[in-house]
């Protein structure tokens, strides 16, 4: 987005906001006239005018600023009770409102605040301020007081605060049907409708005499939006959640019903539900700019207090996030910003001495990446003082001197997220109490996000927060333990392991009575779900070893992998996350609850909380320390790569990096449809082409069949997907890869090279090349030329 566009965006927001504020002003002024002693009304009016003045000064609308300034001065005297409100003053203020409205429409039309002369009005406002009476020509009789339209101020404020902006299609008909759904939040109560003239006369009292049709001629920016009460959206979201559940339930019937009509209808229901879900989700999306708006002010106040000069820059303020997430990150963001201002950026003199600009820079950046939102807060300050952090950690008893010395720079940076850690020399008003960074981390992790930081000495520090787009509906795996079902968020899920018969004996073991599982050469600590939840019937290590089958869900919590033993692994489902009541909020093992297809409630497991309760992940300090002790031993294995192994028709193994795989799916062969030269399936509301790996690799084309399951490796390509049909998915492995050159002539068909994986020579698929040659024609028509040139 160019800076010009950005400016336009700012102006547009300013206009929307100001129009709303002016509507409120009209109401407030009239309420004030009814009840002149209402300090609340005066304060509200004062704030509104003050906001307008501030913003237009910032945008460079001097004329508008002048008028607002004069009105503000008058209001401040009213507020301080140095002046009593009388009809004259009310009139003058209402006139000011009209004039401002006129200038706003002029700004909307021409980006200029008009060239009308408002000096008379300004003079009048000044004269009234000094207690003088208005003798100037503007002092005409007050406008007809619109007595019956006095707005009760209380309900007028509520919807303004709570409503979210819902962009409607910019068609002129759109607002009408939408408005019928919305509660009538911003009702025009006060005075006749505003008439936005490009250039409005300085004073006009006969507003009622203006032809009403004028309003149509110059629609204001607010026309494209409908304000909707958040409660309505929440309800809608709940209903969609219910619909998703009902859809899931119906989908369970499909395999048992032999009726083409039913199947087709269900398919359609499925697609529509998905679309509706994403549509409703969109209405809850808000630009992150809404949270950021408050930050420049925070920075300004803080930097003044600290004697620093700081400029705030923002990139990607239009990046959208679910409302609940926006609310959840508000505090962590503010804290990080404060931290940067307080600790990160240096004082002016120090900066000059270091050869930097006197003015420090604080950059906020937000962007979408892989279904997540990234938020970066960076400063160009001094960076973290690693030595001081090390010293502090030792002093606080978090680490021994020896451990501290062995920590890598990155791990030292992570130390600041420990509870009770603060390196500030003195406790300031701002930060340095040692409560903060760990709270930031906990709060971000609570909404399924991660926070980390990078710091370069002398160049600055960057905090990076990654959070999911939405929390309302998440994919989850449903597991059973006895009669109880639990949902595990897919995001913490690594893989599923099922041991049967002899495998149980060979793979399971115990160390000091704690069960572990040997999984591809490494030991995986095991936790029995029943045990972790304090339920009866938890199996001991010995009982486990004699079990017929053992189902293990491999999970990741705080960089530690562990296996959760469950009775049964059911399906994975999209679940609607609902909060737990206050009686249950203190239980760390649960993240919420959801309603299953059969209407019963299932608890959602909080993987980190569960791991902590089961002591797989100790308290943060311990695990950090343990990890750092193990650093050197683990170092050589670090560059391991996760690979998905599957077999070709001729039985040979082949691998793709797991990072290239979005999902593994099984499609019913009957749902495959021909489209041009391709075979496609409907997937997540898109048409996904299917490619047969064996056809591409020249090892036969035997994976197509007219019915039965098709194993498909789904690869995300931008916003689109392509599916690779494979004969059999073998395993997911972590290997330290030593890639050898591929056999001659194999590069063209998409082989990156070969390596020894699980004692077999395995070819590594180069999905990029493969997709450019084959699916490229389908997926990226515009890339054809480029792909051809590269061959």
């Amino acid at each position: 987005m160019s800076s010009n566009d950005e400016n336009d965006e700012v102006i547009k927001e300013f206009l929307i906001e100001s129009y709303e504020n002016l509507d409120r002003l009209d109401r407030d002024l009239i309420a004030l006239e009814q009840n002149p002693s209402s300090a609340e009304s005066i304060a509200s009016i004062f704030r509104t005018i003050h906001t307008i003045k501030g913003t237009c000064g910032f945008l460079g609308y001097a004329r508008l600023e002048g008028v607002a300034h004069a009105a503000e001065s008058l209001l401040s005297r009213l507020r301080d009770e140095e002046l009593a409100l009388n009809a004259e003053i009310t009139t003058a203020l209402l006139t000011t409102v009209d004039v401002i409205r006129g200038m706003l429409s002029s700004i909307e039309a021409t980006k200029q605040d008009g060239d009308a002369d408002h000096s008379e009005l300004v003079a009048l406002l000044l004269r009234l301020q000094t207690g003088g009476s208005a003798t100037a020509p503007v002092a005409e009789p007050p406008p007809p007081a619109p007595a019956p339209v006095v707005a009760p101020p209380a309900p007028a404020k509520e919807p303004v605060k709570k409503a979210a902006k819902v962009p409607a299609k910019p068609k002129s008909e759109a607002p009408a049907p939408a408005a019928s759904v919305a509660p009538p939040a911003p009702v025009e109560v006060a005075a006749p409708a505003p008439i936005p003239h490009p250039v409005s006369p300085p004073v006009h009292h006969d507003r009622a005499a203006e032809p009403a049709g004028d309003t149509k001629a110059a629609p204001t920016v607010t026309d494209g939006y409908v304000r909707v009460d958040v409660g309505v959206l929440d309800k809608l979201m709940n209903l969609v959640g219910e619909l998703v559940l009902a859809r899931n339930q119906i989908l369970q019937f499909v395999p048992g019903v032999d009726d083409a009509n039913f199947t087709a209808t269900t398919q359609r229901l499925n697609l529509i539900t998905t679309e509706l879900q994403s549509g409703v989700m969109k209405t809850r999306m808000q630009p992150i700019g809404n949270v950021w708006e408050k930050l420049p002010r925070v920075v300004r106040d803080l930097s003044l207090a600290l004697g620093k000069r700081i400029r705030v820059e923002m990139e990607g303020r239009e990046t959208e996030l679910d409302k609940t997430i926006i609310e959840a990150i508000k505090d962590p963001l503010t804290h990080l910003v404060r931290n940067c201002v307080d600790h990160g950026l240096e004082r002016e003199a120090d900066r000059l001495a270091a050869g930097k600009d006197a003015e420090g820079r604080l950059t906020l950046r937000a962007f979408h990446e892989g279904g997540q939102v990234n938020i970066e807060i960076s400063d160009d300050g001094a960076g973290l003082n690693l030595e001081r952090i090390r010293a502090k950690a030792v002093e606080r008893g978090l680490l021994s001197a020896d451990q501290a010395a062995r920590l890598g720079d990155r791990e030292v940076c992570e130390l600041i997220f420990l509870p009770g850690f603060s390196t500030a020399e003195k406790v300031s008003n701002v930060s340095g109490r040692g409560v903060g960074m760990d709270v930031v981390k906990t709060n971000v992790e609570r909404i399924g996000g991660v926070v980390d930081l990078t710091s370069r000495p002398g160049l600055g520090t960057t905090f990076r927060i990654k959070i999911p787009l939405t929390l309302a509906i998440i994919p989850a795996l449903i597991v059973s333990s006895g009669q109880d079902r639990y949902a595990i968020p897919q995001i913490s899920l690594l893989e599923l392991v099922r041991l049967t018969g002899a495998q149980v004996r060979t793979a399971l073991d115990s160390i000091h009575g704690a069960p572990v599982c040997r999984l591809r050469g490494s030991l995986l600590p095991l936790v029995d779900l029943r045990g972790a939840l304090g339920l009866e019937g938890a199996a001991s290590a010995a009982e486990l070893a004699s079990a017929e089958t053992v189902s293990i869900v491999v999970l990741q919590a705080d960089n530690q992998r562990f296996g959760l033993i469950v009775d049964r692994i059911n399906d994975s489902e999209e679940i609607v996350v609902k909060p737990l009541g206050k009686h249950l909020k203190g239980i760390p093992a649960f993240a919420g609850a959801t309603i299953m297809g059969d209407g019963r409630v299932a608890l959602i497991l909080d993987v980190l909380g569960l791991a902590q309760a089961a002591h797989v992940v100790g308290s943060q300090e311990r695990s950090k320390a343990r990890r750092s002790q193990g650093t050197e031993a683990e170092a050589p294995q670090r560059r391991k790569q996760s690979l998905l192994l599957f077999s070709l028709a001729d039985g040979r193994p082949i691998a793709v990096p797991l990072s290239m795989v979005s999902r593994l799916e099984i499609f019913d062969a009957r749902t495959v449809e021909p489209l041009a030269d391709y075979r496609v399936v409907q997937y997540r509301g898109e048409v996904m082409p299917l490619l047969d790996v064996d056809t591409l690799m020249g090892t036969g084309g035997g994976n197509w069949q007219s019915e039965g399951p098709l194993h498909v490796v789904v690869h995300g390509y931008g916003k689109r997907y392509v599916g690779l049909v494979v004969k059999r998915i073998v395993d997911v492995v972590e290997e330290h890869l030593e890639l050898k050159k591929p056999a001659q002539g194999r590069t063209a068909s998409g082989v990156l090279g070969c390596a020894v994986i699980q004692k077999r020579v395995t070819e590594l698929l180069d999905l990029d090349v493969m997709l450019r040659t084959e699916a490229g024609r389908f997926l990226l028509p515009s890339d054809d030329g480029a792909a051809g040139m590269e061959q």
Partner: protein
Amino acid sequence: MDTIQFATFTVDGVLFGVEVGGVQEVLRYQEMTRVPLAPSIVSGLINLRGQIVTALDLRLRLGLRPRPPGALPMNVILRGDDGAVSLLVDDIGDVLTVSPELAEPLPETLQHLGRELIKGVFKLNGRLLLILDASSAINFQTGRRLTSDEARRAAAPPASNLQ
């Protein structure tokens, strides 16, 4: 003369009432999902038309003996500050209208009941109606320690001290 309406129910043979204004609805037995690790008073979670409601066992809350096995409790759904909460009771009674003047102090003999939850007593045709303080009944300390988050929050400096 002002009168008050109470929704009544019985728990272990005792007639209780809560002011109707605080009652959202009354439901027969609902299937519950138990919550491991929860305080024992929490019997489980019920699905109230898509809303998840915590069910508290009023017998345990009042310190009465547990419900005999096999007896299915009814739900009195109360409006709490934090969404609806269900109180599990033995049986649902009528809505009774009484005048506040008839209220009597709690007899000293009622020692075994959770006295702090009883707001008053009405004598009705030889039967006692105990008025339950709904908000105290659903707000309780489980005796657990503060979670680390709560402790932190308690220790955190007020956020607005900069303005």
